[in-house]
Protein backbone atom coordinates (compact mmCIF):
# COMPACT_ATOMS: atom_id res chain seq x y z
CA UNK A 1 0.00 0.00 0.00
CA UNK A 2 1.48 3.35 -0.95
CA UNK A 3 1.68 6.39 1.33
CA UNK A 4 -1.46 8.12 0.15
CA UNK A 5 -3.55 4.93 0.24
CA UNK A 6 -2.38 4.47 3.80
CA UNK A 7 -3.19 8.09 4.66
CA UNK A 8 -6.77 7.88 3.39
CA UNK A 9 -7.22 4.51 5.06
CA UNK A 10 -6.05 6.03 8.33
CA UNK A 11 -8.51 8.91 7.98
CA UNK A 12 -11.39 6.62 7.00
CA UNK A 13 -12.00 5.40 10.53
CA UNK A 14 -13.95 7.37 13.16
CA UNK A 15 -11.87 6.03 16.07
CA UNK A 16 -8.67 7.15 14.42
CA UNK A 17 -10.14 10.56 13.62
CA UNK A 18 -11.15 10.81 17.28
CA UNK A 19 -7.56 10.07 18.31
CA UNK A 20 -6.35 12.81 15.97
CA UNK A 21 -8.89 15.22 17.50
CA UNK A 22 -7.66 14.35 20.97
CA UNK A 23 -4.06 15.00 19.95
CA UNK A 24 -5.08 18.25 18.30
CA UNK A 25 -6.68 19.35 21.57
CA UNK A 26 -3.70 18.20 23.61
CA UNK A 27 -0.57 17.26 21.73
CA UNK A 28 2.13 14.98 23.11
CA UNK A 29 0.15 12.36 25.03
CA UNK A 30 1.22 8.92 26.21
CA UNK A 31 -0.77 5.80 25.34
CA UNK A 32 -2.29 5.75 28.85
CA UNK A 33 -3.35 9.39 28.61
CA UNK A 34 -4.97 8.76 25.23
CA UNK A 35 -6.83 5.72 26.59
CA UNK A 36 -8.24 7.59 29.59
CA UNK A 37 -11.44 9.03 28.18
CA UNK A 38 -11.88 6.70 25.25
CA UNK A 39 -14.33 3.87 25.00
CA UNK A 40 -11.73 1.56 23.47
CA UNK A 41 -9.47 -1.13 24.77
CA UNK A 42 -5.81 -0.29 25.18
CA UNK A 43 -5.05 -2.89 22.54
CA UNK A 44 -7.26 -1.31 19.91
CA UNK A 45 -5.93 2.17 20.69
CA UNK A 46 -2.43 0.75 20.15
CA UNK A 47 -3.45 -0.70 16.80
CA UNK A 48 -5.04 2.56 15.69
CA UNK A 49 -1.95 4.50 16.74
CA UNK A 50 0.28 2.09 14.79
CA UNK A 51 -1.70 2.78 11.63
CA UNK A 52 -1.69 6.53 12.30
CA UNK A 53 2.07 6.38 12.73
CA UNK A 54 2.52 4.30 9.56
CA UNK A 55 0.55 6.92 7.65
CA UNK A 56 2.74 9.64 9.21
CA UNK A 57 -0.23 11.44 10.79
CA UNK A 58 1.22 10.72 14.21
CA UNK A 59 4.85 10.75 15.19
CA UNK A 60 6.36 9.75 18.52
CA UNK A 61 8.98 11.42 20.66
CA UNK A 62 10.71 9.88 23.64
CA UNK A 63 10.79 11.72 26.94
CA UNK A 64 12.70 9.53 29.36
CA UNK A 65 10.74 6.31 29.56
CA UNK A 66 7.61 7.82 28.10
CA UNK A 67 6.61 7.70 24.49
CA UNK A 68 4.69 10.82 23.51
CA UNK A 69 2.36 10.85 20.54
CA UNK A 70 2.43 13.99 18.46
CA UNK A 71 0.05 15.03 15.72
CA UNK A 72 1.94 15.54 12.46
CA UNK A 73 0.00 17.87 10.15
CA UNK A 74 2.40 17.62 7.18
CA UNK A 75 0.53 14.81 5.31
CA UNK A 76 -2.72 16.78 5.68
CA UNK A 77 -0.98 19.78 4.14
CA UNK A 78 0.06 17.55 1.22
CA UNK A 79 -3.58 16.44 0.81
CA UNK A 80 -4.71 20.04 0.96
CA UNK A 81 -2.29 21.06 -1.77
CA UNK A 82 -2.98 18.00 -3.89
CA UNK A 83 -6.75 17.91 -3.61
CA UNK A 84 -8.01 21.33 -2.51
CA UNK A 85 -5.76 24.28 -3.20
CA UNK A 86 -5.58 23.76 -6.91
CA UNK A 87 -9.32 23.79 -7.35
CA UNK A 88 -10.94 27.14 -7.49
CA UNK A 89 -11.32 28.29 -3.94
CA UNK A 90 -13.91 31.07 -4.50
CA UNK A 91 -16.33 28.64 -6.13
CA UNK A 92 -15.84 26.09 -3.36
CA UNK A 93 -16.48 28.77 -0.79
CA UNK A 94 -19.68 29.86 -2.55
CA UNK A 95 -20.92 26.27 -2.53
CA UNK A 96 -19.98 25.82 1.09
CA UNK A 97 -21.82 29.02 2.04
CA UNK A 98 -24.89 27.97 0.05
CA UNK A 99 -24.93 24.55 1.74
CA UNK A 100 -24.65 26.18 5.13
CA UNK A 101 -27.50 28.58 4.39
CA UNK A 102 -29.78 25.86 3.01
CA UNK A 103 -29.08 23.40 5.75
CA UNK A 104 -29.16 26.10 8.41
CA UNK A 105 -26.43 24.41 10.35
CA UNK A 106 -22.75 24.82 10.89
CA UNK A 107 -21.25 22.30 8.54
Amino acid at each position, binding site marked *: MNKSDLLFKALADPSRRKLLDRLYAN*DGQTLSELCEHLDMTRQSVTQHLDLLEAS*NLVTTLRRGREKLHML*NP*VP*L*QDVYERWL*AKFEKPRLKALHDLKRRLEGADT
Partner: protein
Amino acid sequence: MSKSTFAYVTFIHATPEQVWSALTTPEFMRQYWFDMHCESDWKKGSSWKLVFPDGRIADMGEIVESDPPRRLTIKWRNQWKEELKAEGYSLCTFTLEVVPDNAKPVVKLTVVHSIESEGSKLIEAVSGGWPRILSNLKSLLETGEIIMPASGHN
Protein backbone atom coordinates in the same frame (compact mmCIF):
# COMPACT_ATOMS: atom_id res chain seq x y z
CA MET B 1 3.78 18.57 28.57
CA SER B 2 5.28 21.37 30.66
CA LYS B 3 6.73 22.92 27.55
CA SER B 4 5.34 23.73 24.13
CA THR B 5 6.51 21.37 21.43
CA PHE B 6 5.55 20.66 17.88
CA ALA B 7 6.95 17.88 15.74
CA TYR B 8 6.71 17.65 11.98
CA VAL B 9 7.74 14.71 9.86
CA THR B 10 7.99 14.38 6.13
CA PHE B 11 9.47 11.68 3.91
CA ILE B 12 11.43 13.03 0.96
CA HIS B 13 12.72 11.07 -2.02
CA ALA B 14 16.24 12.52 -1.98
CA THR B 15 19.63 11.92 -0.42
CA PRO B 16 20.44 13.33 3.05
CA GLU B 17 23.07 15.56 1.37
CA GLN B 18 20.42 17.05 -0.92
CA VAL B 19 18.06 17.70 2.00
CA TRP B 20 20.86 19.20 4.12
CA SER B 21 21.86 21.45 1.26
CA ALA B 22 18.23 22.54 0.79
CA LEU B 23 18.05 23.44 4.49
CA THR B 24 21.24 25.49 4.47
CA THR B 25 21.42 27.21 1.05
CA PRO B 26 19.78 30.67 1.04
CA GLU B 27 18.94 30.81 -2.68
CA PHE B 28 17.28 27.41 -2.56
CA MET B 29 15.53 28.18 0.73
CA ARG B 30 13.74 31.20 -0.74
CA GLN B 31 11.89 28.90 -3.12
CA TYR B 32 10.17 26.87 -0.41
CA TRP B 33 10.25 29.26 2.59
CA PHE B 34 7.89 31.97 1.31
CA ASP B 35 10.81 33.95 -0.12
CA MET B 36 12.52 34.09 3.30
CA HIS B 37 16.03 32.79 3.85
CA CYS B 38 18.48 31.98 6.64
CA GLU B 39 21.96 33.39 7.05
CA SER B 40 24.62 31.38 8.87
CA ASP B 41 27.80 29.44 8.20
CA TRP B 42 26.01 26.51 9.92
CA LYS B 43 28.85 25.74 12.31
CA LYS B 44 28.34 25.06 16.00
CA GLY B 45 28.37 28.33 17.94
CA SER B 46 27.83 30.48 14.86
CA SER B 47 25.12 33.07 14.63
CA TRP B 48 21.94 32.36 12.69
CA LYS B 49 19.18 34.56 11.41
CA LEU B 50 15.99 34.19 9.40
CA VAL B 51 15.43 37.13 7.06
CA PHE B 52 12.17 38.43 5.56
CA PRO B 53 12.05 39.08 1.78
CA ASP B 54 12.40 42.84 2.47
CA GLY B 55 15.57 42.32 4.53
CA ARG B 56 14.08 42.71 8.02
CA ILE B 57 15.15 40.08 10.53
CA ALA B 58 12.36 37.71 11.53
CA ASP B 59 14.22 35.55 14.02
CA MET B 60 17.77 35.17 15.20
CA GLY B 61 19.90 32.97 17.37
CA GLU B 62 22.72 30.48 17.28
CA ILE B 63 23.68 27.10 15.88
CA VAL B 64 23.76 24.75 18.87
CA GLU B 65 24.54 21.55 17.06
CA SER B 66 25.63 20.88 13.49
CA ASP B 67 26.29 17.37 12.26
CA PRO B 68 25.88 17.38 8.47
CA PRO B 69 23.93 15.69 6.97
CA ARG B 70 22.25 14.27 10.06
CA ARG B 71 21.31 16.81 12.70
CA LEU B 72 21.00 20.56 13.05
CA THR B 73 19.83 22.42 16.15
CA ILE B 74 19.13 26.14 16.20
CA LYS B 75 18.56 28.37 19.24
CA TRP B 76 15.81 30.53 17.85
CA ARG B 77 14.34 33.81 19.10
CA ASN B 78 11.72 35.94 17.47
CA GLN B 79 12.79 39.50 16.64
CA TRP B 80 9.87 41.24 15.03
CA LYS B 81 7.04 40.87 17.51
CA GLU B 82 7.55 42.04 21.10
CA GLU B 83 5.17 39.49 22.56
CA LEU B 84 7.02 36.61 20.90
CA LYS B 85 10.48 38.05 21.52
CA ALA B 86 9.64 38.21 25.23
CA GLU B 87 9.26 34.43 25.34
CA GLY B 88 13.02 34.10 24.81
CA TYR B 89 14.79 31.29 23.04
CA SER B 90 13.17 28.25 21.49
CA LEU B 91 15.01 25.22 20.14
CA CYS B 92 14.50 23.93 16.64
CA THR B 93 16.03 20.58 15.71
CA PHE B 94 16.17 19.07 12.24
CA THR B 95 16.88 15.35 12.10
CA LEU B 96 17.61 13.59 8.82
CA GLU B 97 17.39 9.80 8.77
CA VAL B 98 17.77 7.52 5.80
CA VAL B 99 14.82 5.16 5.55
CA PRO B 100 16.30 1.68 4.98
CA ASP B 101 15.27 -0.77 2.28
CA ASN B 102 14.28 1.62 -0.46
CA ALA B 103 15.47 1.30 -4.04
CA LYS B 104 15.84 5.08 -4.25
CA PRO B 105 17.05 7.08 -1.25
CA VAL B 106 14.32 8.33 1.08
CA VAL B 107 15.00 10.72 3.95
CA LYS B 108 12.79 11.02 6.99
CA LEU B 109 13.02 14.69 7.95
CA THR B 110 11.82 15.51 11.46
CA VAL B 111 11.53 19.07 12.71
CA VAL B 112 10.96 19.50 16.43
CA HIS B 113 10.38 23.03 17.62
CA SER B 114 9.99 23.60 21.36
CA ILE B 115 10.23 26.19 24.11
CA GLU B 116 10.32 25.84 27.88
CA SER B 117 6.97 27.45 28.55
CA GLU B 118 3.40 26.30 28.33
CA GLY B 119 1.01 27.73 25.76
CA SER B 120 3.76 29.48 23.82
CA LYS B 121 2.57 31.97 21.22
CA LEU B 122 5.86 31.58 19.34
CA ILE B 123 5.37 27.85 18.91
CA GLU B 124 1.77 28.49 17.90
CA ALA B 125 2.96 31.04 15.33
CA VAL B 126 5.63 28.82 13.76
CA SER B 127 3.36 25.77 13.84
CA GLY B 128 1.21 27.34 11.13
CA GLY B 129 4.20 27.79 8.87
CA TRP B 130 6.13 24.53 9.17
CA PRO B 131 3.66 22.19 7.42
CA ARG B 132 3.58 24.42 4.35
CA ILE B 133 7.34 24.96 4.33
CA LEU B 134 8.01 21.21 4.59
CA SER B 135 5.37 20.37 2.03
CA ASN B 136 6.98 22.88 -0.36
CA LEU B 137 10.45 21.53 0.37
CA LYS B 138 9.36 17.95 -0.36
CA SER B 139 7.64 18.97 -3.57
CA LEU B 140 10.58 21.11 -4.70
CA LEU B 141 13.15 18.35 -4.11
CA GLU B 142 11.01 15.64 -5.69
CA THR B 143 9.49 17.46 -8.65
CA GLY B 144 11.52 20.66 -9.01
CA GLU B 145 8.51 22.85 -8.35
CA ILE B 146 6.33 24.04 -5.51
CA ILE B 147 2.55 24.03 -5.41
CA MET B 148 1.97 26.88 -2.98
CA PRO B 149 3.77 30.07 -4.12
CA ALA B 150 4.92 32.78 -1.70
CA SER B 151 1.71 34.73 -2.38
CA GLY B 152 -0.23 31.90 -0.74
CA HIS B 153 1.28 32.88 2.61
CA ASN B 154 -0.89 35.00 4.86
